C-alpha cells in the first residue's frame, strides 16, 4: 500500500466511497442472481418517542423457505447519534452498512466536524442509488435510517426505496416482509407522547406480531436465548438495550398471551 495522495484536481475529499473507487477497491458490478442462493433479512422498524427514536429488528435471515441464520444482526449504530437497520439481500446490506459507517467516520475525521442528520440520510440515499444495477438483478437492499437531530433536538426517521428515493417519516415506519404487520401494530399503539419505556414496549410488541404472522420473521427464540435487537438514539447517543431486558419483555408478553390462547385480550399488550 502506498500513501494515498492525490493532486488537487482529482482529490476525493471526505468521500470514502470515491476514495475506494480511486483505489480500485469497490466490488465490481454485473453479478446475476441466477442460481445463487442469498440470505434475506426480514423485519426492521423505527418509531419516534418524546426523547428520540427506537429502532428494532428481528434476528432471522432466510434463503428461500429455509432459515439461513437465527442470530443475524440487522440494527447497527451508524455513528454516535444515528442508527441504520436493513432488510433485503443480507450480504449486500451488511456490506452497505459497513461502508456507510466508515463513510460517516471518515467524513468526521477528514473535515473535523460531523455531518448533519439530513446529510447522513442523503449520503445513504446515494449509496442505495449506486446499488441500483444490483437491485435490478435481485439483490435489493432497503435500509431504514434514524437518528437524533442535534440542531432540531428531535428524533427523525428516513425510509428508502430500491431506487435511492428517501422519505422522512412523521412518526414510525417498518420495512421487510413482516413490515406490514409491525406497522399496523405500531399504528394501534402509537401516541405522540410515548416515553422511552413505552416506545421500547411497543417495538417489542410490533416485532412479536410480525413474527406471529410472517414466516420469514423470527420471533423470540426461547430455546436458544436469541431475542430481537432493540436500540434507542437520543441526545445521549446510540444505546443498545440489554438482551436480558428485551428477553424479560418478551417473556412477559408471551405469559399474557398464553393465558388468552394467543390473543392480546382487548388492548395492545
Amino acid at each position, binding site marked *: *500500500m*502506498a*500513501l494515498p*495522495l492525490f493532486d488537487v484536481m482529482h482529490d476525493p475529499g471526505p468521500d470514502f466511497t470515491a*476514495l475506494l473507487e480511486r*483505489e480500485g477497491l469497490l466490488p465490481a458490478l454485473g453479478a446475476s442472481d441466477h442460481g445463487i442462493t442469498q440470505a434475506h433479512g426480514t423485519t426492521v422498524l423505527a418509531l419516534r418517542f418524546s426523547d428520540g427514536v427506537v429502532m428494532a429488528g428481528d434476528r432471522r435471515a432466510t434463503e428461500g423457505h429455509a432459515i439461513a441464520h437465527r442470530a443475524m444482526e440487522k440494527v447497527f449504530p451508524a455513528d454516535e447519534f444515528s442508527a441504520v437497520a436493513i432488510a433485503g439481500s443480507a450480504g449486500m446490506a451488511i456490506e452497505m452498512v459497513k461502508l456507510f459507517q*466508515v463513510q460517516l467516520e471518515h467524513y468526521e*475525521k*477528514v473535515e473535523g466536524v460531523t455531518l448533519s442528520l439530513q446529510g447522513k440520510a442523503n449520503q445513504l440515499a446515494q449509496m442505495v442509488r449506486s446499488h441500483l444495477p444490483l437491485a435490478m438483478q435481485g439483490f435489493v437492499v432497503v435500509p431504514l435510517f434514524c437518528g437524533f437531530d442535534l440542531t432540531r433536538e428531535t428524533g427523525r426517521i428516513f425510509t428508502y426505496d430500491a431506487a435511492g428515493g428517501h422519505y422522512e417519516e412523521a412518526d414510525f415506519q417498518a420495512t421487510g416482509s413482516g413490515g406490514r404487520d409491525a406497522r399496523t401494530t405500531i399504528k394501534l399503539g402509537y401516541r405522540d407522547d410515548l416515553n422511552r419505556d413505552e416506545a421500547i414496549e411497543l417495538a417489542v410488541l410490533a416485532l412479536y406480531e410480525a413474527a406471529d404472522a410472517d414466516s420469514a420473521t423470527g420471533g423470540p427464540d426461547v430455546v436458544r436465548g436469541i431475542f430481537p435487537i432493540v436500540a434507542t438514539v437520543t441526545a445521549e447517543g446510540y444505546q443498545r438495550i440489554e438482551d436480558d431486558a428485551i428477553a424479560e419483555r418478551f417473556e412477559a408478553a408471551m405469559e399474557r398471551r398464553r393465558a388468552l390462547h394467543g390473543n392480546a385480550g382487548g388492548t395492545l399488550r
Partner: protein
Amino acid sequence: MSMPYYVAPEQVMKDRAEYAQKGIARGRSLVASLYVDGVLLVAENPSKTLHKISEIYDRIAFAGVGKYNEYDQLRVAGIRHADTKGFAYSREDVDARSLANLYAQYLGSVFTHEMKPLEVEILVAELGQGQRPTQLFHVAYEGTITDEDRFAVLGGDAEPIRTSFAERYEAGWDLSAALQAAMGALAGPERTLAPSDLEVAILADADERRAFRRLDDDALAGLL
C-alpha cells in the same frame, strides 16, 4: 554546448535541509508524552479550527508542525490509508508503524527528488493494547524516523524544550502533571501559556472504540 552547472550533492542536501528547517522554525512547537492512561499531545496553537493534532484511527493520532497545508495533506492521507486498510482487512490490522513508514518514505522521496522539501515534522502516536506497546513515531522533514517510548518534541525550537521536558519527565505520571510539564516546557523561561494558547488531545482507553479525545479550555482549566 553549454555545460550544466555542477553543484555537489552534499551542498544540495545541505541547502534543502536548511530550507526545510527554516520553514519548520517559523511555526510553534509541540510536545507528546506518555502518561499513566495513554498519550498526551500538547501543541502551541492559538487557532481553534486549524488543527495540528488529529485523529487517524481508533487508537492512532497524528500531530504535525511546520507548514499547515503540507502537514494537513499528510494528515488526510493518513486517515485515508487507515480507513481503507481497516475496511479491506480488519480494524485491528491498522497500525501506526506501517503508517509512519509510509510517511517516512514519502518525506524521504520528496526531500531527495523534488525541488522543494516539505517543511514539516510529524508524529504518529499509537495507544498500546495487548502485545502492542504504546509508541510515538517521530518523522522528520527528510524522512528520518525514530520511535520514542517516553516523549517526543517537534518543531524548530525543539532542543531547549526537549531538555526542559526531559528534566521534568516522570514515568507513569498522571495527566495533570504531564500537562503542566508540557506547558512549562513549551513556554520556556520567559513566557507563560494559557489554556487558550494550546491545542490539547489525548489517546486514552474509555468505553468507546475510539480512544482520541480533544480537551477543551474548560477541561484544561480543571486539570491545571
